[in-house]
């Protein structure tokens, strides 16, 4: 799982970095004002983007959000509480959030809460991150399994996802279990 930071200054990036990498999320940071956001997002495929609320690149992200389903979208209408916390993230930490549809809202919520709370107190964090860890681990396995299938069988990402889902259905197991099994044994069975 990848989180891309755009125009987040070093001070804030460091705080976020400490939380996120501990949870096993890959963090990429860009502060170059000449960076080509389209190319960057196209190459890196981040699942979540955190961007400075006042970054000029936000208008580019808005465009991207409207172009493609696979590209990060503005997360605004998550429902009452979540929208509230996204507003707090913007006003208290000066950070706006974009995510692709596939990111579970619970995970997003945790990430937002963590980011906010970090700017208030560092102490509350551990527990929250621990709660977040199984979810990120699951996604990690899923992504690795997809990559394994794509590399081994020369399939596209959609085909790999399809294959995992079909096997999960057949075996009546959660798809993450099937993914883990595949990574452990190299086989679906």
């Amino acid at each position, binding site marked *: 799982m990848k989180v891309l930071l755009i125009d987040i200054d070093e001070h804030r990036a460091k705080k976020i970095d400490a939380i996120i990498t501990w949870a096993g999320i890959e963090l990429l940071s860009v502060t170059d*004002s000449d960076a*080509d956001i389209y190319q960057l997002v196209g190459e890196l495929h981040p699942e979540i983007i955190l961007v*400075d609320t006042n970054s*000029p690149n936000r208008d*580019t992200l*808005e465009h991207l959000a*409207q*172009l*493609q389903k696979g590209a990060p979208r503005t997360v*605004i209408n998550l429902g009452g509480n979540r929208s509230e916390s996204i507003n707090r993230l913007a006003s208290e930490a000066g950070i706006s959030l974009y995510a692709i549809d596939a990111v579970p809202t619970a995970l997003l919520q945790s990430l937002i809460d963590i980011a906010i709370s970090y700017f208030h107190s560092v102490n509350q964090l551990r527990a929250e991150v621990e709660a977040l860890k199984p979810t990120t681990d699951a996604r990690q396995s899923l992504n690795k399994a997809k990559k394994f299938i794509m590399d081994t069988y020369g399939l596209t990402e959609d085909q790999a996802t399809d294959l995992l889902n079909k096997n999960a259905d057949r075996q009546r197991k959660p798809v993450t279990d099937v993914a883990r099994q595949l990574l452990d044994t190299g086989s679906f069975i």
Partner: protein
Amino acid sequence: MPWYHSFIKHTVGALALTSTCFAMAADLEKEELKFGFIKLTDMAPLAIAYEKGYFEDEGLYVSLEAQANWKVLLDRVIDGELDGAHMLAGQPLGATIGFGTQAHIITAFSMDLNGNGITVSNSVWEDMKPHIPKQADGKPVHPIKADALKPVIAKYKAEGKPFKMGMVFPVSTHNYELRYWLAAGGIHPGYYAPLKGDTSGQIDADALLSVTPPPQMPATMEAGTIYGYCVGEPWNQQAVFKGIGVPVITDYEIWKNNPEKVFGVSNEWAEKYPNTHIAVVKAMIRAAKWLDDNNNANRPEAVKILAKSSYVGADYDVIANSMTGTFEYEKGDKREVPDFNVFFRHNATYPYYSDAIWYLTQMRRWGQIAEHKPDSWYMEIAKKVYRPDIYRKAAEQLIAEGKVSASEFPNFATETGFKPPQTEFIDNITYDGNKPNEYLGKFSIGLKPKDTLK
């Protein structure tokens, strides 16, 4: 680091209190206001209303705050941090129909006409030149049509280079104008397809349009990431000054006297503070009038004000180049374009329903509005967002106070909010705001009334 990138908010505080209009102030629901703007020359009516004391005359204490991007500007108007803002005409419409952020935003004041241009890189210009007819003096015949760009794009395509161009926001005037110009020359700018989901979003495109922040346009083009762009001033003239590109056309030549920015507020705000809203519109009408008075005689003073870092913050000469009635195309080819920036004449400040509907037709043409809508829908949205009723109240007060004469406004008794069918488009297609679907059917490139992208 460009100024646009700066995170510092420039706040211009209004402190001075003049003795005028205390009686009027008593009716105001809110007196201290904060307005947002983007650092572009067409924010001028706000700066002038502030600097010339027109807000104070209405009993308003206004502060103006530069915003870093269109998105944050809109978000702040929605959540109430800003009382109102200098907006792209497409923003209140886009927000109200839920393209992008959903919120009911209205406008009772159009801020200006025209003011944008399309610039291409030097090498694209060299390739275009052989395809452009010349005048007797050897200079290119204007307006330059995108027909001259078509073979250049074909050449880039053959070389495997996707032809990329920049604009400033998905619902920006610039996006629609660039698309209009390209399509009029037979170049497909691509469809949006919100219903389709997994597509590139640049479906069928000959030219790929992307969003680049205005101040970064020249540098992005110089770096070769984009080959041209459509933007407001001073970013076209900047390319000429820097010698990195050539403006090929102004939007005045694409659609004569096209509506540009609007002053947007949330509907909730407008319902809560109706008298305040009227007072704001009054101050801005006076500012717009000042900007155009005596054949642009006040423009040099306006340029001096706009050049300040708290407003546009660009060189006097760069801003003056377009604001004082001329426009420089290829270096040295400076031509008179007296109406490049219009703030008041031609009823520029009146929020016409037909202007709103034109933007909606373009949203539909390019798939931002994914499905067919009846003419009545266009009418309904225009009336929901554009509010000439509020404008009229402000204007009538100004007339009663003797500050502006009635002859400088539309005749409110008979004004329908629809301009007569407009013919001055680069492709000679006539636009009648009463018949949006019929209009959509006239374009050879673009979604037809019944088309759906799924």
